[in-house]
């Protein structure tokens, strides 16, 4: 089992004072294993960047501790921490060439010139910038600038690499190709990394584990599969991918991790990671749009009325009205399925393995 390499313990950051107090990070606890890439994901203002900046040392925690390899670094200045950061705006020095930008940190450390040259050339090849050493940042594309920024961080051989939305300034296509490169590089080098983004797809693609944050608090930590299939609350379920929520009640536990629920007077068996539910407890049944099948209306089935359909080529999106609720249904390969028209009544089937329940909350 990999040991905990980076530990955040009861980390809190409060800005301002008196009536103008803002708790940006609220009692965050996180353990990152060596070589892992963990993504802090959440909407703007959720505290993910503040958390990252505390790990880097640009902000000191109001309370709590930060450890790297069991050594506390909570109030250590950034220059003395074993971390480097890749910034959203690359932070390249415009008056230096690619080579000088990458070698900058080593020159500050006063390493031997021969070492600097060797290491810099090695890193330049590693990130795919061969032949561009003498260019200035202004003459590089966005993707190339990003790679220089990454190279400049990697050359310092940090214990923890921090990335603050490094792809947000790239166009969509470049973002997709660059994130795969970053992931491959991170795995090849084996460097422990903390990545911040608000892009779900980016988080799901890159990460070993995802930390969902909202209003300064951690909502859930898990692998992308765990987060998507077993969100712990409404916020996580709604934030990751598309989700349908139907109110219901717990009928009873069938066995450990299996519970029977009553939704719209229909009974469903749901697998759950939670150990026990109380009988009669109010819950939300979570069904992802791609986990719903539509058929011609059948007796005794859950039925609804088609209100809208949107054809997207490889997918058909239906909006179905079920009593006072609305379900979004996504049918892939629509040519292989019957197309229903607005106003038509349909039977709705849920794929059993894809059902999930979360605690009920007032929205």
């Amino acid at each position, binding site marked *: 089992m990999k040991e905990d390499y980076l530990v955040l313990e009861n980390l809190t950051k409060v800005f301002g004072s008196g009536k103008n107090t803002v708790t940006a990070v609220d009692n965050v606890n996180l353990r990152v294993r060596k070589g892992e890439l963990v993504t802090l994901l959440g909407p703007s203002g959720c505290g993910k960047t503040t958390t990252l900046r505390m790990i880097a040392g640009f902000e000191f925690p109001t309370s709590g501790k930060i450890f790297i390899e069991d050594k506390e670094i909570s109030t250590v200045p950034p*220059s003395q921490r074993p*971390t480097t950061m890749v910034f959203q705006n690359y932070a390249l*020095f415009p008056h230096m060439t690619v080579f000088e930008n990458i070698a*900058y*940190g080593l020159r*500050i450390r006063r390493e031997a010139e021969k070492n600097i040259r060797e290491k810099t050339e090695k890193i330049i090849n590693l990130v795919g910038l061969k032949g561009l050493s003498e260019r200035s940042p202004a003459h590089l594309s966005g993707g190339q600038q990003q790679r220089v920024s990454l190279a400049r961080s990697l050359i310092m051989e940090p214990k923890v690499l921090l990335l603050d939305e490094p792809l947000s300034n790239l166009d969509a296509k470049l973002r997709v190709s660059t994130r795969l490169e970053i992931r491959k590089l991170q795995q090849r080098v084996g460097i422990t990394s903390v990545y911040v983004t608000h892009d779900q797809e980016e988080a799901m693609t890159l990460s070993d584990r995802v930390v969902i944050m909202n209003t300064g608090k951690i909502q859930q930590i898990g692998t992308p599969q765990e987060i998507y299939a077993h969100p712990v609350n409404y916020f996580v379920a709604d934030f990751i991918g598309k989700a349908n929520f139907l109110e219901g009640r717990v009928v009873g536990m069938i066995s450990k991790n299996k519970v029977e629920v009553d939704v719209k007077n229909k009974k469903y068996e749901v697998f759950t990671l939670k150990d026990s539910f109380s009988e009669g407890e109010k819950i939300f049944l979570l069904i992802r749009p791609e986990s719903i099948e539509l058929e011609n209306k059948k007796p005794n089935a859950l039925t609804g009325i088609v209100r809208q359909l949107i054809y997207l080529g490889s997918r058909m999106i239906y909006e179905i009205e079920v009593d006072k609720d609305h379900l979004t249904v996504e049918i892939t390969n629509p040519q292989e399925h019957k197309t229903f028209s607005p106003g038509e009544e349909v039977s709705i089937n849920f794929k059993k393995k894809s059902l999930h329940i979360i605690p009920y909350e007032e929205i």
Partner: protein
Amino acid sequence: MKKLISIFSGIPLHLVIITIALIWILPSVGLLITSFRSSADVATSGWWTVLQHPFNFTCYTLENYREVIIRIGIGKAFWNTLLITIPATIIPILIASFAAYAFAWMDFPGRRLLFVILVGLLVVPLQMTMIPILRVFNKLGLAGTFPGIWFAHTGYGLPLIIYLLYNFISGLPSELFDSCSIDGATPFQIFKKLVIPLSLPALASVTIFQFLWVWNDLLVALVYLGGTPDVAPLTVRISALVGSYGQDWELLTAAAFVSMILPLSLFLGLQRYFVKGILAGSVKG
């Protein structure tokens, strides 16, 4: 056709601009020509008579320049002005660049209050400070010395230079500083390797401002240096010439152009930084 119309429609505007420029430059041209004419010619005819035969070089003489530079002592005054202006430019720029960086990017107690006081100093009239400072200079033995006037110009120039440089330096992206500090750079290393190279346009423009201000200064030099020929700068010597050679226009104009030549060359050579400097102050302020 459209191109022809656009060319011809621009002609009246260009004519107006050229006319205004010619009117504006005419007095200076007149003074320049006068400075190359003999005293006899100046006494008997106007400078425009030269334009009838501009390439008749017998009308011109360098005697005026020889007179003012060597015999009247404008040459010595030129060197005095250089000895005053160069340190009085370098010293405040050096101090101001450190101060502006500290105000912009370092956190220390009283930073805001100090900056407010600094900006407040911009409104203090120079004339109000002269008597108290002269008293202090007299006690310290600095009155009538070059170090004294260097201190004076440094003090007078610092508030504005710090303010202009602060506006520019505070506009540099914060990630650059974060990136440097996470690489282990000290504040001085950040200042030397990052701030100075990136601030060259702003530094060039404040250097021009300060240089021109000190070069053209009369009042501060007169008060703190006095008028003795061994220390007097060009402005003081030329103002004295008006008294003693008030009727010798050819000498006055020659002296004036000797004083103009260096700042004019500096301005023409670095004018793009001058314009940038004006904008840097106005946009950030």
